[in-house]
């Protein structure tokens, strides 16, 4: 594929254009998961465990079944069982044994909120009443919430069929520790011996929820011939189809999934929750079944991201060369294995050329909901610990924190801790932009502090399919299989228009259902503009080829003599007297001269571009209360190429504010029985408009050479560095290192009091 990186004189790429789905979203016309109604539908509700860890001794559904209006009651008996997957394990595990038990508990419940039974009834009110009539007898078991404790020998074991997996095979005894992934290079002992300064610290972070505003919602319509139509809010309807088919032993082709508009996901809508249950209830009743989670259910029973504990040690020479770095981290997987440990190791220390480094991350089951992805899954907690220590190294070495990073920054040809070799990357460019930014030198007032941190994310490629159709009137539809979570239709349209050389308004981007398209992986991993964008470019280039052929046929000249320029088929200069033909003119001829014109592309995109995001943040602390107010915020990120700059800026701004929430407020809070205490937005306090300042963005554009326009992906690196940057600002403001998130007012106040006490002591 031609590399057009030298060409920046684009007609549409990089321009601020209105998004094609915008009008529907400002008028309330857009239909999200919960906005669909089907005639004759039933309403489903799920009964959830009030216990964090218990055996299910019996479930009596007779009273619920007898209630007027109840059409079906379901337990795990109606969900097919699946064997445990076996080693060797893939980096990301989709174990049907676990997923079937997560959507409906089988013999045990593993967290407060775990689904135990479900009802389908003629109204939501009846369904709500009916689940209260289901009698479940539990034998309560001891629980464990902390991952390091859970990995120890004395912890209550969640799964008696889970053994620790390592290169030596499986452990003798069942364990909550599923596996550990280690990245290692060099000689740690030598590295620390070479260091002039060594810092050793412990960090903890709490699980945080993705906090999408649209609850999980779906409608399943099963028919007597084993077909299913499913409407659901998801980041990947092809993945939902695959999981439902495997879980329910159905044929893929007989499940047709339509993705609704999606009201936020951030990784939290990558998997199934209510969908298989709704399908089974529909199969049992012969009626459409609608399942919508309440906000409380979303918090209790859908996956937050991991909480973590880290022990970390880093050493550096006086000149700032980091000689060694060693981290051991325990990640909470929640009720079932699958914490993003591999990706944590990939990102650990990977912004730096540290010769001697090791990161070992443990995947540990605890009595919490099974974690899901959340925007750069696994990376922000690793960056929080590593960047925290690097900031302290800068203080100890008397070095500027950006200079320290520059001294150790990775460049093209260097490797991540897992050995990924960096291509053309923009870390140095990012750091230079930070140093020259006015924010970096701006004065700070009393009780104020400035924080800085760096984040790396490798991005995803993978399977994407696109179908583009040229219509008789010269307009074009571009269908993808990727839900549009934050403006991807806009980027797809821009790239198609740029290739075809026509006005963007002539192109209609569409998110098509699973019956209409080849397989398309999730809208996740910041892959859509990159991977699906590549497929869009391929598909419209196929249209261009067909248009050249059509023009050649019309002119009766060789196709090689026809070029495509700015929306026109142009004959070579050797053919005097022939007038260039527009896309519109050719579109009108196509059906009369051979048939309709379409382009398709089904690819597995490689060549992703890694990206780095630097964040600068100023905060002010109220010394009376410990309340932290972010005052100024700047995100400097290598975005490759901003196809739609408005939405690239929006990603960076949104990621920064999610990081502010993660650093300052958000946490899952449990009582001593491991029951979740903050199951609503009032107590699970995400940032509101009055909590945050404007978020300045600096888009550094170092193009990814593996994409015609240089796209890297932008949505995730910005969250990787955000919690660390905010935490660093708090530390600077109060003059003390802090090692746990969130830095809520009581914790900050305690820090302030410790500083004051030490000052009194030294006076």
């Amino acid at each position, binding site marked *: 594929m031609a590399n057009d990186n030298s060409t920046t004189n684009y007609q549409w790429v990089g321009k601020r254009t209105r*998004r094609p789905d915008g009008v529907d979203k400002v008028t*309330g016309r857009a239909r999200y998961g919960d906005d669909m109604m089907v005639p004759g539908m039933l309403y489903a509700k799920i009964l959830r465990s009030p216990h964090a860890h218990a055996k299910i001794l019996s479930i009596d559904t007779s009273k619920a079944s007898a209630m007027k209006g109840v059409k079906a009651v379901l337990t795990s008996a109606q969900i097919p069982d699946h064997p445990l997957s076996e080693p060797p394990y893939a980096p990301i595990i989709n174990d049907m044994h676990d997923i079937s038990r997560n959507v409906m508990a089988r013999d045990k419940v593993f967290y407060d909120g775990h689904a135990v039974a479900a009802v389908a009834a003629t109204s939501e009110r009846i369904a709500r009443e009916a689940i209260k009539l289901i009698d479940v007898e539990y034998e309560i078991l001891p629980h464990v919430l902390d991952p390091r404790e859970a990995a120890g020998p004395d912890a209550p074991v969640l799964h008696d069929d889970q053994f620790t997996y390592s290169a030596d095979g499986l452990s003798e005894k069942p364990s909550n520790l599923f596996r550990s992934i280690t990245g290692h290079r060099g000689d740690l002992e030598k590295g620390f011996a070479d260091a002039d300064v060594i810092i050793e610290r412990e960090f903890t972070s709490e699980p945080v929820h993705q906090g999408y505003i649209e609850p999980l919602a779906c409608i399943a319509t099963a028919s007597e011939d084993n077909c299913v139509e499913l409407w659901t809010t998801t980041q990947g309807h092809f993945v939902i189809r695959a999981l439902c088919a495997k879980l329910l032993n159905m044929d893929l082709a007989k499940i047709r999934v339509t993705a609704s508009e999606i009201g*936020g996901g951030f990784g939290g809508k990558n998997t199934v929750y209510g969908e298989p249950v709704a399908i089974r209830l529909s199969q049992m009743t012969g009626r459409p079944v609608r399942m919508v989670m309440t906000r409380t259910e979303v918090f209790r029973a859908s996956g937050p991201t991991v909480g973590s504990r880290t022990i970390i040690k880093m050493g550096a020479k006086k000149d700032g060369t980091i000689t060694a770095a060693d981290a051991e981290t325990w990640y909470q997987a929640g009720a079932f294995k699958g914490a993003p440990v591999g990706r944590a190791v990939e990102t650990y220390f990977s912004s730096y050329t540290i010769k001697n480094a090791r990161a070992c991350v443990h995947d540990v089951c605890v009595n919490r909901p099974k974690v899901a992805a959340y925007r750069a899954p696994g990376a922000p907690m690793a960056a929080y610990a590593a960047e925290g220590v690097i900031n302290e190294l800068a203080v100890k070495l008397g070095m500027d924190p950006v200079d320290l990073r520059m001294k150790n920054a990775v460049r093209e040809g260097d490797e991540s801790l897992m050995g990924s070799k960096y291509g053309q990357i923009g870390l140095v460019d990012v750091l230079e932009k930070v140093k020259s930014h006015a924010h970096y030198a701006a004065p700070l007032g009393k009780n104020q502090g400035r924080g800085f941190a760096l984040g790396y994310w490798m991005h995803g490629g993978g399977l994407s399919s696109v179908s583009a159709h040229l219509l008789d009137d010269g307009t074009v539809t571009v269908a993808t299989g990727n839900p549009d979570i934050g403006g991807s239709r806009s980027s797809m349209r821009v790239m198609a228009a740029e290739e075809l050389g026509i006005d963007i308004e002539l192109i209609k981007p569409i998110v098509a259902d699973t019956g209409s398209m080849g397989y398309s992986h999730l809208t996740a991993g910041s892959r859509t503009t990159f991977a699906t964008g590549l497929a869009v470019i391929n598909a419209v280039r196929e249209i261009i080829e067909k248009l050249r052929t059509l023009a050649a046929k019309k002119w009766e000249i060789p196709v090689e003599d026809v070029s495509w320029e700015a929306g026109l088929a142009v004959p070579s200069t050797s053919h005097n007297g022939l007038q260039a033909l527009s896309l519109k003119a050719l579109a009108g001829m196509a059906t009369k001269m051979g048939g309709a014109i379409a382009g398709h592309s089904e690819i597995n995109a490689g060549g992703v571009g890694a990206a780095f995001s630097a964040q600068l943040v100023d905060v002010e602390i109220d010394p009376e209360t410990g309340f932290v107010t972010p005052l100024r915020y700047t995100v400097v990120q290598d975005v490759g190429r901003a196809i739609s700059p408005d939405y690239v800026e929006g990603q960076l701004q949104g990621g920064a504010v999610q990081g502010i929430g993660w650093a300052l407020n958000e946490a899952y809070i449990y009582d001593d029985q491991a029951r979740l205490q903050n199951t609503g937005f009032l107590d699970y306090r995400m940032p509101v408009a009055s909590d945050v300042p404007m978020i300045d963005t600096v888009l550094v554009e170092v193009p990814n050479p593996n994409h015609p326009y240089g796209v890297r992906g932008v949505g995730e690196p910005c969250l990787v560095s955000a919690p660390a940057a905010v935490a660093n600002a708090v530390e600077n403001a109060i003059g003390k290192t802090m090692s746990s998130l969130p830095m809520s007012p009581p914790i900050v106040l305690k820090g302030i009091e410790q500083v004051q006490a030490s000052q009194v002591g030294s006076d």
Partner: protein
Amino acid sequence: MAKHHITTNINGDEVDFSCYAGQTLLEVLRTELGMTGTKNGCGSGDCGACTVIVNGRPVNACLVLGVELEGADVETIEGMAEGTTLHPLQQKFLDHAALQCGICTPGILNMAKALLEKNPNPTETEVRYGLAGNLCRCTGYDKIVRAVMDAAAEMRADG
């Protein structure tokens, strides 16, 4: 359980509906009347996604009962545009890319409309506090605040 018959005004039209005593305005709009532009984010008044305007005041539709609406004037997102002409706030949200997923947008637009009716010339801080009851998880609020301030300026200029 008997339903109550209610006559109300929605976006200027007289509308009849029947609802149970416990049904909220949000449920009535979405399930009884099929007006799904008003979004359900939490059902407990904490996210603002269901913000509508009742008798001139912005309210969370999930905290108002359907039976309270006899004779009321209700404004929802479906009535914000005048015919096919978008409200300046809707225009500015598109111009400033002030939405990503869009689920919070109808509620924020209604809240901003109510804010600007009370205060046509708000400061950034006033806009931020005015919208503090409306959660947005995607945008970080930056472009939303800019869009509201720009719409306010345009509405003042148009008098």
